[in-house]
């Protein structure tokens, strides 16, 4: 049973003399959710705040309280976390603050919306230090299944983890796993912040994917920067730019780049990332001082995403070709990576390379 509810958008305002959230508007005013639910929707709230007399400091935080889904005027408990944004400005003035809100509408919520006549998602916005608030409303309706919906929207690194610590110049990518229904063009930007400035995101690559029908899609990011030490964040921002989103509402994953400068790294030279294995391929690397031998290891992923060693070779040199026996062991294996561990004269490991992927045909 589907209902189409006509759009309206309203805002209630309560003006107080010193400082106040005067009004809140939302874009879009009406959102259509696939009637099977599992949709990820983005709302852009714009709160107008006025300050008519000086306030303590010059910072003001606008807070959107826990959101509620109302069906036919009755709250049906679609809660969501608070959202907030802090701005700084000099009174007396009026500022418009944009806060992006992403909410997931479950199958249960979609069912409730479909069963009701009118449905709204609403948040009360207030600012620090006053009791004044304004309420923003978005109308929700269920519609035909051609609207784009997601039953999975998972951001992770290439090994399915969401937290990584890697050495300098390691190869690292992120991936976004999506299960979608309906159709639409998913446009977005891969963004990275760091190593200088926690929230200073910059685009490193764009994605345009036309999604149609029911499908699972994995979007892979460009190579993430690992050339400088530091702490980085990665996110995928659909449909333009999302700003200052609480961590729990927008998938953000963190990685740390460290090492290399103190000489413990084994730097891989050849073959290149994802190069196909040929029987005559030469494996080469740069080892640290004090290394008298190396172990070249070939790994396949285990259930944990880390590696199981399927073949290895110990050698006293920094380059080697594989024996036919080793090549035979690798044949037919999927997801093979290789790495090199350096050993000192006592047989202790003193350095290790990144894990580099190898194509096996």
């Amino acid at each position, binding site marked *: 049973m589907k209902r189409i509810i006509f759009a309206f958008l309203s805002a209630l305002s309560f003006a107080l003399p010193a400082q106040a959230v005067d009004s809140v508007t939302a874009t879009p005013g009406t959102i259509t959710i696939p009637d099977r639910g599992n949709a990820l929707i983005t709302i852009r709230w714009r709160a107008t705040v006025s300050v008519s007399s000086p306030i303590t400091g010059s910072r003001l935080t606008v807070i959107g309280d826990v959101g509620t889904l109302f069906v036919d005027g009755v709250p049906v408990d679609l809660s969501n976390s608070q959202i907030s944004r802090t701005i700084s400005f000099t009174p007396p003035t009026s500022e418009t603050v944009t806060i992006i809100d992403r909410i997931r509408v*479950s199958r249960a919520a979609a069912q409730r919306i479909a069963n009701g006549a009118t449905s709204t998602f609403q948040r009360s916005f207030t600012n620090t230090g006053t009791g004044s608030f304004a309420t923003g409303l978005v109308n929700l309706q269920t519609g035909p299944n051609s609207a784009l919906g997601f039953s999975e929207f998972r951001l992770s690194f290439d090994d*399915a983890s969401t937290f990584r610590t890697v050495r300098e110049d390691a190869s690292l990518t992120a991936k976004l796993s999506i299960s979608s229904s309906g159709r639409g063009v998913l446009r977005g930007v891969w963004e990275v912040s760091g190593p200088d400035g926690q929230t200073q995101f910059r685009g490193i690559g*764009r994605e345009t994917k036309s999604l149609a029908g029911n499908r699972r899609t994995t979007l892979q990011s460009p190579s993430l920067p690992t050339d400088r030490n530091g702490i980085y964040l990665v996110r995928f921002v659909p449909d333009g730019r999302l700003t200052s989103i609480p961590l729990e509402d927008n998938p953000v994953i963190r990685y*740390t780049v*460290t*090492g290399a*400068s103190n000489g413990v790294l084994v730097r891989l030279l050849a073959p290149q990332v994802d190069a196909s294995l040929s029987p005559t391929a030469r494996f080469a690397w740069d080892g640290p001082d004090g290394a008298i031998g190396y172990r070249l290891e070939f790994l396949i992923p285990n*259930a944990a995403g880390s590696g199981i060693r399927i073949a290895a070779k*110990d050698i006293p040199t920094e380059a080697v070709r594989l024996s036919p026996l*080793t090549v035979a062991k690798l044949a037919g294996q999927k997801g093979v990576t290789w790495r090199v561990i350096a050993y000192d004269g006592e047989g202790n490991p003193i350095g290790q390379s990144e894990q580099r992927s190898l194509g096996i045909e």
Partner: protein
Amino acid sequence: MALRNWVLANALYMGVTGSALAQDLGKIEAGQSILVSVPGASSDIYVEVDAIDVSAYASLENGVLTIDPLTSFGPGKHQILVYDAVSFDLIAEATFTGSQSISLNWSFDAVHEAEARSVNGDQTETFQSSGALSVETDDQSFTANVGYYATSADNFQIDGNPIDISEYLFTVDESIGGTNLRGNLGHHTISYDNALISDLTKRGLSGEFTSANGVFQIGLFGMRVAEEQGVDNFSGLAQSNDRLQGAQIKLTPFKFSSFSISAQGYEGEGAAFGSFDIGEGDGYSFSISGASRDGRVRYGATAARATWDEDGSGGLFQSETANAAVAFLSYDFPEKGLTSATIGLEAERVDQDFFSLANEALITGVETYRVTADILRNNLSLGIVAETEETNFNGDADEPIDRINTFELSASINGLGQGVLSDASLTISASVTDQKRLETPALALDPADYQVRDLGINLDKYGDIWGWGIGLRYIDDDDQSADDFDLLQQELSGYISYSPSADFDISANAWIVRSEDIFEDWVDSELDVALNYAIVPEKWDISSRFGVYNTNAPGGEDGQYFEASLSWTFLPSAALVFSGRYAADYYASESGTDEDEIFSILLRANTNFLK
């Protein structure tokens, strides 16, 4: 191929009879030479210890092989195999017991940062530290990896704790009396079949037991439903309404075949993706899988039945029981020179109401048949996918049924003849998706037919000094419903990079997209330029970026930014970074106003410890 057969046959031979022929060398201490008697061997041999090729550390004299290994082997039994390097015949086998001291390899890698930052005149000081501790035994029978994150900034803390663990994983891989045991605790992935329990990446505990002859395998797991970091609910098993558990029994009955048959089951409670209700479900499945003809033919099939109640004991949803069946078959054609080809067939019949908390991403309500082909020939790679899908499979009779046909083609050529394009690559991707209404029940919505055509062409060349690329994209979304909400997008993108030395590089990216729907058309574009220069290599570095974004999209805003940083590495593991950024409108994301002016001084230190 002959060699591969040889290895497989030998592996089988060793599995059946190996230990009976082996010399037992007893206990070998760390640093001690390993001596193996190999009477009559030629000088050209391969030597492996636990599948590690140690030939470079082995010497043969008077029928005695001496191995002085690079590093000692840990406790427990180890196997030495000696092959003739010409004929690949196994000429000797031996076992020894490693020294009893368990040698652990430790590494700890972390970055610590203290930053003073001014955003439009407001100053904040933050400290953050992030990294990971890894421990593993020499033979990797035990591994542990624990990540942590500490920060003074409230909004980034894990569970509101100034310091907390992020993800962690402990693995144990042991052989006891011939039975192999593998255990995982922490964040990891469970995939038993392709329908009921698949791609489950969460925090939890799992184990796998494989009998000595490889015939029986049992898997067990318990996992948290919510994806969380932090020390809270460490095992992931603490809350019964946020936990699922399951098992697999697998039988590989034939010694000469990888054919296996398995049964899986799970039950659990938790909030499904995007839901705030605690749901409850269970299910079971049966699978077969295997490969034949030297692994060229691979196949698998799973039939599953699952029950799910979206709100547990709540009244809004009823418990639904539904079925899913998935199957695949693929074939690698025999390789001819540089040509290889794989063809695949896939079928999925998944009821509309099928839902497994252990495979939430499964597409439901579809009957899909798919053909795939992957062809590699010299420098050309070609991929083709053709599929047809019927929606609302075994679903509500009031819902319409559509057919969706999709055809996708991707081709890439590496190296385009002679001259300037000799090491460039050309990539073409094209797809057509077409939806047509099959049945419209009374009261159901009108057809929402459409056809989406997507074409992308990219030409790239990566060189040591110069790199460049150009791309074209065309998306035509033809809405064939009564709404007729068509959308047309055309995109042109390009980049260029110049890096004359390791100390200097500059790159520029630009794109422009023109979009047109039935009401209006608009253009978005962006230019981004980045520069890095090591004034004194390994000591003083500067980097700078600027970007310009323009749009006349409805409700869009333009923007510009410029940022620069100067980094002084005053110790090998410590640096001081001065940076500044100005951003306006579209790029102003930090202050909450239309302009950001940010200045920062950051002190960074690394800890890298390996033992």
